[in-house]
């Protein structure tokens, strides 16, 4: 492990922790202005998190150690996953981080714990949330694997670092038309994984619409803050995977301050644009019925599969 790599780790972690809550509030602002409201301040999510960190933790008397460790497992999973996705600076190829399959399954681990914590307190809401989350994720996961298999076909790599390096060397590869399909399906996955409309509604606590919120209903205080933080980190990570694969311009492989500053600015601009798109997308749709959601996820998989077909038939 070189010094450069350790610096990369620290920088990535720092960026993820600092930026993640920003985009939660940004999307809220976009949605609010689409509905003709003013919307919260950009710093509102940071304030919410600080407030939660100061509050007392209460556990249900039914709950066990699962409830107690889940917030920690979640945030650790997300932070370790954060090392897999270079945001602005790409160090050389790595063998220990960056593998896409491990990346996906770290998310799955976090989800496993979260779903168990939903069942732990024995309340009906939590169980409902876990049940729905596990059912939907069972369809999201194949779609994600297919997307990454398609990327493996295009770039001959199963490591995010390798894919990003290939792209920064020849950014024109991102113009590959069959990647358009992939971008759509990754976008659907992003929406699904971050619990947004039309799959889930992050803003309500209604039985009909809740998936993710229902699972963390029993969490409180700093544990809740950790859960919300890990959701924010997950969103930022998936957003940056989407950005860095399909709009790779600006990523730097040289570890100099001007290069990194430049790519950071570009990254921020691209992220803000993506947040805008997500916000507008969310505002333009209504929540779907629960059993219509599988269709959307299956279409995401089919699009990824079509990409592979094109890649296979047109070598």
């Amino acid at each position, binding site marked *: 492990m070189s010094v450069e790599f350790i610096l990369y780790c620290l920088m990535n972690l720092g960026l993820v922790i600092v930026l993640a809550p920003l985009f939660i509030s940004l999307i809220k602002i976009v949605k609010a202005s689409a509905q003709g409201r003013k919307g919260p301040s950009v710093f509102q999510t940071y304030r919410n998190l600080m407030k939660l960190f100061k509050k007392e933790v209460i556990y249900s008397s039914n709950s066990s150690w699962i409830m107690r460790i889940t917030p920690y497992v979640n945030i650790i999973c997300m932070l370790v996953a954060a090392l897999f996705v270079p945001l602005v600076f790409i160090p050389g190829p790595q063998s220990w981080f960056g593998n896409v399959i491990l990346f996906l399954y770290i998310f799955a681990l976090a989800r496993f714990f979260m779903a168990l914590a939903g069942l732990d307190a024995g309340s009906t809401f939590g169980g409902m949330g876990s049940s729905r989350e596990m059912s939907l994720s069972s369809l999201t996961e194949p779609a994600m694997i297919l997307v990454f*298999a398609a990327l493996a076909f295009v770039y001959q790599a199963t490591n995010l670092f390798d894919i990003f390096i290939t792209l920064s060397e020849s950014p024109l590869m991102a113009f590959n038309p069959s990647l358009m399909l992939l971008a759509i399906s990754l976008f659907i996955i992003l929406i699904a994984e971050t619990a947004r409309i039309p799959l889930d509604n992050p803003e309500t606590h209604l039985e009909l619409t809740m998936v993710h919120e229902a699972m963390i209903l029993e969490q409180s205080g700093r544990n809740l803050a950790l859960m919300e933080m890990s959701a924010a980190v997950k969103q930022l990570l998936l957003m940056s995977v989407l950005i860095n694969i399909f709009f790779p311009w600006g990523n730097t492989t040289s570890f100099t301050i001007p290069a990194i500053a430049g790519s950071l600015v570009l990254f921020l601009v691209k992220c803000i644009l993506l947040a805008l798109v997500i916000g507008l997308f969310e505002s333009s749709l209504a929540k779907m019925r629960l059993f219509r959601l599988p269709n959307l996820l299956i279409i995401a998989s089919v699009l990824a599969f079509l990409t592979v077909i094109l890649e296979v038939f047109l070598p």
Partner: protein
Amino acid sequence: MINITLDMLFILATFLLLLAALYTLLFLTKKSKIVRGVSLSVALLANAILILISSSIVYSGTALEFNFNQIFPMMGMDFLIDRLAAFFILAVSIIAAAVTVYSFHYLDHYPQTRRKNIHIFLMNLFVLSMVYVVASRNMISFLIFWELMSVSSFFLVCFEFEKAETRKAGLFYFIMTQLSTVFLICAFVILYNETGSFELARASEMSSGLLSMAFISLFIGFGIKAGIIPFHKWLPYAHPAAPSNISALMSGLMIKVALYGLIRFLLYIFPATYLWWGILILIAGTVSAFLGVIYALKEHDLKRLLAYHSIENVGIILMGIGMCVIFTSYGLTALAMISLVAALFHTLNHGLFKSLLFLTAGSVISETRTRNIEEMGGLVKRMPKTAVLFFIGAVSISALPPFNGFVSEFLLFHSLFQSSLIPDPIVQLIMLVCLTVLALTSALAAACFVKAFGTVFLAAPRSEHAAQAKEASWSMVAGPSLLAALCIGLGVFSFQIFSWIGPRIGYSFPLPDMLPAVSVGAVLLLMIVIGFRLTDSRKPRVSETWGCGINSQNSKMEYTASGFSQPIINIFSFIYQPQKINKRYFMDIQETVFREGKVEIRMVRFFEDYVYLPIARTVQRISRWLYSQQNEVTLDPFIFYEFLAILGLILLVGVIV
């Protein structure tokens, strides 16, 4: 100085296992626990020796050869333990050791002394026969020990034979296992016919038609034993009926012995393999994996749920074998090796975590006295150690990092991702479909184990028995603990293990290093925890949280297992085909006064309704017709038929020769 060689040690281990078995027979009616204790300790020692021998062979690669031809002449008692066999013996002996420890106290709650002693006798014999099936170098000895394995496991399944359910399961198992032997014998005869020897060595060239026939009958024969769909039906019957330690052995080991046979024949005996075999195996594996987990999701019987997961995992292992054959036929040996190692490593891993799950499930079942998970719940507080062990098994089987189940599925994913190296686009697409289904399967397995762990261990107890459950005794914790430690160790240190073993077999494995990820995670965790401790010293409060407006929650309000799996059943309703049957009965003919109603939701049992039962009915119909042809029920006509049959056979031989 006595030079102890490996074969002497192996024979010592055999002797010890036999001793352990026979010892219980000597003191059959003795009521003391010591008899079983002594026998199990001797068996444990034997297993330890076997672990030692097999791990040294796996590491060094020098094969071990010996025979019993002096004791049993002309029976083909030749044995050869090469790396592949040693690997399987290693798996067998590790898991058998854990099960042996577990069995010290597991049988305590059964009253019948004699039966318990016989049980220990048969268990040791069962383990011995599995070791010898794997070690066999000759088809005759393979079959002998194969049958010994089948028969001893049949008696073990029938432990509680007073229950009608158990008798039915045992009979079903026996018929299926004999059917499997029939197919094996067919294949062996074909091979013998072509090569002229019963030895399990690389066969000479033979015509592709006969070779494919031999392959098909071997695939069916081993497939029945391994529980590949559509030959899987005995698994979900036999496992709930058998005692849990036997379920652990059968699911963890016996079905793996069948897979060993398949791998042995495919890679070491057959002179050639064809692409379509690989595709057949891959597709059969994918279907088994997917349907296994789909059926597991609807199951509320804890052991039957685990049995369906065995079908799923056998499917995953088969996918690895199929990929190996496909890659071999394209000459991609490195990838073929990776997929084979993925299959083998998953075999070991599945043995570990499935035995772990069956053993802990056994502890839970003997405490709660039910197999229905809807009547459990809250056990995490009452059986904390068992809960942790079951949890480790659940995480491993759901293929989540950094546990061992993930590593083997990772290797499989990796080799499926490499399908772009195959020239034929259609094969590539088949592999990608399999990849998608594999991802779906592992996600559904995670869902299923959230359901299982959640309803069995979490929330409030759902029945009287569950509320009064106590922690299992020490041996029933110690045995599974060994397996759990291996599950974690083989996961976290997988990169190190493979980079150590890789050069010895001449391949490198593209595993991600789990250790840095885990250690980074640990450091971050430490930082967060210390940060919290420093900034806030309040202890968390344990209190009533919001219960949807009701003050005190009870177990009736919890989400049930059927509720949990309902969305998945709805999504996959095209497989389950749930039928709602709504019947209403009235007091009078005009149907005005309602008497009673019956509502039933029934899932279609596809294989039972459309495969097994039609075959059974046809056989019954034929035998009924034959019976009706004989108007007299005396012995004479049968002797007459026999006479005719033998005469016909001799004439047939005369015509052919």
